[in-house]
């Protein structure tokens, strides 16, 4: 096998290592160090895909991140990835790729019919049509358009790769390892600064790898290699290749994606595929270079038309000829460098230079080498469909308006150079106010908002000597500012060929009678004519132009098209470019894998899970868990094939009949200490707290300042100045912050410390008529009688050698106690309760049974405290003090809150006593009323009352207090249910609360 377009002696690839790969099913080979693009070009493959809209053939345009269209579907290690840039994808053994956006094949693509219809498909055509008949848009037209759109195919398999993050800090972050990056990194590192040098390509050196220059008596490439190896050895320097700094965020935080494994056939086990670096830098040096601008002419999207710098890179880095009969079309000296490289490698290029009589060392050299140069010449159009086979060229008048006679010239590639566009993306993202530099016809960074400096070509400095001088200085000065060191190293001498000015020319006029498409945005098929239409129709702001035509909105985000687009708008609108302004640069500079942004928090670990000390016991005993915030709680303990309904009913019944135990560790616990603790509680809760005796608990409700219930729970006075507060599981963290807010900001005079002790204590609620007997057995030394431990009483005791806190509180409405022990002993406590409880027929119960118990008792919980209810809605009037002030009190007397027909919690029973009412049903007066049917309230919680063996629900009902005894309908249209119901008191079981006090 030979590669027709690979040269023997030139390039940085490893010829000792052949790699085989497949493209569109055909086998090829390349070498280690190739990109997929260079390997394909070496094999003479130029047709890669089809464009977005017209399905025109697409080849390669660039050689790196700026590539607008050479993208493929990549297959690697049994996975596939869409829209991979061939110019960035390094070749590996066994790589497979296919074309995107063409069917049935890239060679014969049905979609190319759009190319013939293109006169009917100008910018914005879809806004003007597809409107009739009305329903056809989403039934017929849209599905067709959708199918045609989209590039590659997303795999819907779960991603098995690892992605990681790293937070790093440094003095100087340097983005780009070209001459300015290397020089500034070296100067700063030598001066003791912590430096991170990031390069997005596999090889360091940037343009030094391809330019014929001499630095300190070494070739540019040798100099770069030496600097890099020295930097790599320095402990204060991190050097990273395959690493793209893609975003510049606030407070000098930059984000970089490092590709660790994309160039390998398979990611090494335990290694990440990519790593995202969050880098906080004291100073940022942007040395991201520049991107060559295309020249615009007819059919300039034909495969074989490419950037002149890319052609040079393929030649010098990969030893690949992009063509054997190249035409170089340039408006500046850069094209000559490419031509000279061709010539040196035995290829005869022809140069078309738009300039009249330029002169410089490089032009001289080209002349001396005998290269054919045509001055004042332009390419009018590329010829050929799937590959350039000739060009239509013409002489152009001095004012660049008129073309001479059209001539044909045979060629197999057209290398274009329309001068250079500084890569100002990062600077602009940082808030830098960019300015237009007339000398280079491009924007350059202006005044910095953050600590950032742009150097070299990215700053519009295109000579090496100046670049190195600026960069050595910047590296030294900035590092000196940070490290206070003063080690200055001297600049090396530089030998480079001088260049002359470029021609302010970017678009070839159309010859008379020709209607060539001249493309600006290659992937999205935006041509000069599209911009003209947009402007003609009044879409004048550059943002309107962009949105109307989709200019610059493709996967390359307009890296090669935006500036030419601006030029065009400014020409037509008769404005200067800076008045037109550029569209906003936003991160990411280049697309970033979402997996990398997310990192390790995926799958089961997408959010942490909290577990109680008794979790293992629950697991072993067939608990079915439920998410409560990020906690896992047992919902019921499944016996055999029991359903949730059966299991929870069994558990609830057992509580009512015997005794049950429930893990309540997840309830928030806050330890409150200090001389003003009582006063704090008195201000936070709606009821009175100043007179709670030591050893007693009290139920409390706290509000937000807007009067809405925030949370409820019991608080116990452990000792004179020591309280133990409990909160709901959901609000625990918020309540702590809430207390800290008032203590630190609003009432700093209060001497109180609050600290979360949720995790310190494992909690078990034992409930049921036999709970006292059980308690007495667990704690033989206490007096468990109602006199010894009354309702809302608190004592401390010893549980088989373990210190325990006992609270006589109840959520289930039964006689109940809550036992707390320190968490390490939680499992011990639980096992003891189960062991000793055997004789009382104890069963553990989960949240579902707990819910049943509280509903039939009419105890409110999260579903009634839904962030919209006030205490009155929940029948908590008795807990709202009239005498004292508290948080949120002032809001309670608003008009809507005191309205006579204000909603209230009520009980709801189906008339047939059989049909369960689905939660979320609404209560209406008339089930047959026309829509919209006025809703009086909704079912907040439903259960099967184990006490009465019929369904029972709680509802929040308008004018609830006057509705008891009324007959309404509970409607759930979603479940197609209309249930006649009767409104009853919310306290369905034990309305006087005798059991808890028994």
């Amino acid at each position: 096998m030979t590669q027709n377009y690979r040269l023997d002696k030139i390039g940085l690839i490893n010829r000792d290592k052949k790699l085989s790969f497949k493209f569109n099913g055909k086998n090829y080979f390349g070498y280690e160090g190739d990109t997929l693009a260079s390997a394909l070009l070496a094999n003479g493959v130029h047709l890669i895909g089809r464009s977005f809209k017209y399905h025109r053939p697409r080849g390669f345009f660039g050689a790196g991140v700026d590539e607008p269209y050479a993208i493929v579907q990549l297959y690697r290690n049994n996975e596939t990835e869409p829209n991979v840039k061939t110019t960035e994808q390094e070749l590996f053994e066994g790589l497979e790729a296919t074309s995107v956006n063409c069917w049935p094949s890239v060679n014969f693509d049905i979609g190319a019919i759009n190319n013939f219809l293109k006169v009917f498909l100008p910018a914005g055509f879809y806004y003007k049509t597809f409107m009739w008949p009305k329903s056809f848009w989403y039934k017929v037209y849209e599905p067709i358009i959708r199918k045609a759109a989209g590039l590659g195919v997303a795999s819907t398999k779960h991603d098995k790769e690892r992605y990681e993050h790293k937070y790093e800090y440094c003095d100087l972050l340097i983005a780009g390892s070209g001459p300015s990056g290397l020089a500034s990194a070296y100067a700063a590192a030598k001066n003791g600064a912590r430096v991170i040098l990031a390069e997005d390509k596999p090889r360091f050196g940037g343009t030094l790898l391809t330019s014929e220059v001499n630095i300190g008596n070494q070739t540019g490439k040798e100099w770069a290699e030496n600097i890099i190896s020295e930097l790599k050895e320095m402990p204060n320097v991190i050097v990273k290749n395959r690493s793209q700094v893609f975003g510049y965020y606030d407070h000098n935080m930059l984000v970089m994606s490092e590709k660790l494994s994309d160039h390998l056939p398979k990611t090494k086990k335990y290694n990440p595929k990519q790593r995202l670096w969050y880098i906080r830098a004291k100073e940022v040096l942007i040395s991201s270079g520049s991107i060559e601008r295309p020249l615009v002419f007819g059919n300039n999207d034909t495969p074989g038309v490419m950037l002149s710098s890319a052609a040079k890179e393929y030649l010098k880095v990969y030893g690949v000829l992009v063509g054997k009969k190249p035409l170089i079309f340039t408006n500046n000296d850069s094209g000559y460098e490419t031509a000279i490289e061709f010539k040196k490698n035995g290829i005869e290029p022809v140069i078309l230079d738009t300039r009249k009589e330029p002169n410089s060392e490089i032009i001289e050299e080209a002349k001396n080498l005998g290269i054919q140069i045509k001055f004042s010449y332009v390419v009018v159009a590329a010829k050929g469909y799937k590959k350039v086979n000739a060009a239509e060229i013409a002489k152009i008048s001095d004012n660049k308006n008129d073309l001479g006679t059209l001539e044909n010239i045979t060629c197999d590639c057209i290398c274009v150079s329309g001068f250079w566009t500084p890569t100002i993306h990062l600077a602009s993202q940082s808030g830098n106010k960019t300015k237009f530099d007339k000398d280079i016809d491009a924007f350059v960074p202006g005044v910095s908002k953050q600590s950032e400096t742009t150097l070299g070509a990215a700053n519009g400095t295109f000579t090496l000597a100046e670049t190195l001088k600026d960069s050595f200085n910047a590296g030294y000065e900035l590092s000196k500012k940070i490290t206070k060191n003063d080690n200055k190293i001297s600049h090396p001498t530089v030998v480079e060929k001088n260049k002359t000015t470029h021609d302010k020319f970017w678009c070839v006029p159309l010859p008379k009678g020709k209607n060539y498409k001249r493309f600006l945005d290659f992937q999205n098929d935006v041509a000069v004519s599209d911009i003209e239409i947009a402007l003609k129709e009044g879409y004048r702001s550059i943002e309107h132009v962009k949105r109307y035509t989709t200019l610059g909105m493709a996967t390359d985000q307009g890296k090669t098209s935006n500036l030419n687009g601006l030029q065009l708008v400014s020409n037509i609108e008769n404005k200067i470019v800076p008045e037109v302004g550029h569209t906003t640069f936003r991160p990411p500079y280049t697309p970033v894998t979402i997996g990398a942004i997310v990192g390790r928090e995926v799958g089961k670990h997408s959010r942490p899970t909290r577990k109680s000390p008794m979790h293992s016991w629950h697991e072993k005993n067939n608990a079915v868990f439920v998410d409560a915030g990020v906690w896992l709680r047992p919902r019921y303990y499944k016996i055999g094939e029991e359903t949730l309904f059966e299991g929870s009913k069994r558990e609830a019944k057992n509580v009512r009949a015997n005794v049950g135990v429930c893990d309540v560790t997840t309830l928030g616990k806050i330890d409150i200490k200090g001389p003003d603790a009582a006063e704090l509680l008195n201000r936070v809760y709606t009821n009175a707290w100043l007179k709670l005796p030591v050893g007693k608990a009290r139920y409390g409700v706290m509000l937000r300042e807007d009067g809405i219930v925030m949370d409820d729970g019991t608080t116990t006075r452990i000792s004179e100045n020591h309280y133990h507060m409990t909160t709901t599981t959901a609000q625990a963290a918020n309540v702590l912050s809430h207390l800290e807010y008032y203590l630190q900001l609003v009432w700093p005079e209060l001497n109180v410390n609050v600290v979360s002790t949720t995790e310190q204590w494992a909690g078990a609620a034992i409930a049921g008529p036999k709970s006292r007997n059980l308690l007495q057995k667990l704690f033989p030394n206490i007096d468990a009688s109602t006199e010894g431990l009354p309702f809302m009483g608190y004592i401390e005791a010893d549980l088989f050698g373990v210190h325990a806190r006992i609270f006589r509180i109840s959520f289930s409405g039964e006689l109940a106690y809550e036992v707390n022990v320190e968490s390490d002993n939680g499992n011990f406590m639980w096992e003891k309760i189960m062991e000793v409880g055997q004789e009382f027929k104890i069963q553990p119960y989960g949240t579902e049974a707990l819910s049943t118990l509280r509903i039939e008792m009419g105890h409110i919980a999260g579903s009634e405290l839904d962030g919209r209810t006030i205490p009155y809605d929940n029948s908590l009037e008795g807990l709202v003090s009239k005498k004292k002030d508290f948080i949120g009190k002032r809001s309670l007397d608003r008009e809507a809150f005191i309205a006579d027909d204000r909603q209230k919690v009520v009980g709801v029973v189906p008339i047939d006593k059989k049909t369960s009412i689905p939660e979320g049903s609404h209560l209406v007066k008339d089930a047959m009323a026309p829509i919209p049917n006025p809703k009086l309230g909704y079912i907040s919680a439903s259960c099967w009352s184990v006490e009465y063996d019929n369904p029972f629900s709680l509802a929040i009902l308008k004018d609830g207090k006057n509705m008891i005894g009324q007959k309404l309908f509970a409607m759930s249209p979603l479940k197609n249910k209309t249930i006649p119901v009767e409104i009853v008191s919310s306290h369905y079981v034990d309305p006087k609360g005798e059991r808890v006090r028994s």
Partner: protein
Amino acid sequence: MSSISALNATHSKGLFGDHEGKNDDELLKVSELKDFLIIQIVKYKSSLTAIENIKIDNLSLKNEALNISCNANTRILWNGPNNWLLISSKKETLKEINEKLLEADFAITNVSHSRAIIQIEGKNTKEILKKGCPFNFNELKKDTCLNSTYNGMSVTIDMIDDNPEKVRIFTLRSFGESFYHSITDACLEFGYKGI
């Protein structure tokens, strides 16, 4: 045994991750620490007591960020203004605290059971921290501490040593299993030994 530590069911011993062909000193060592006395000490705003005069286990309370007072048994970590976290392997220290720190001046809260504690040791220890915690560890020295967050979980990090690096990380007990996963998962790349 009645007492079960936070990571009892979670921590496993042995070699994990990319450990093959690596020397023992190249591997990270991950262990669970338990049975510490952990006391939060907060001086009330109104208290006029001078903390300079107080010594617990011969250690002083210093009101200075990142600061630790420590000896072989006890480490007193600065936890916030007038707020310390005392970690001690000597359970008797609690008695000393209760004697020396008056109830009128200090809120003393025992939180010994409320934390899961992981110790990591080895030359890549800071690399593990950097994978989930946004703090700048480059200049963090031996015997300093901080509160921060690791993959979204609040943590206290205590730099025990810097050669080789050794840290203790405290997180809330209920997060223990998730946190243990987060840390050991970060260690896989380097290979680690659960001890």
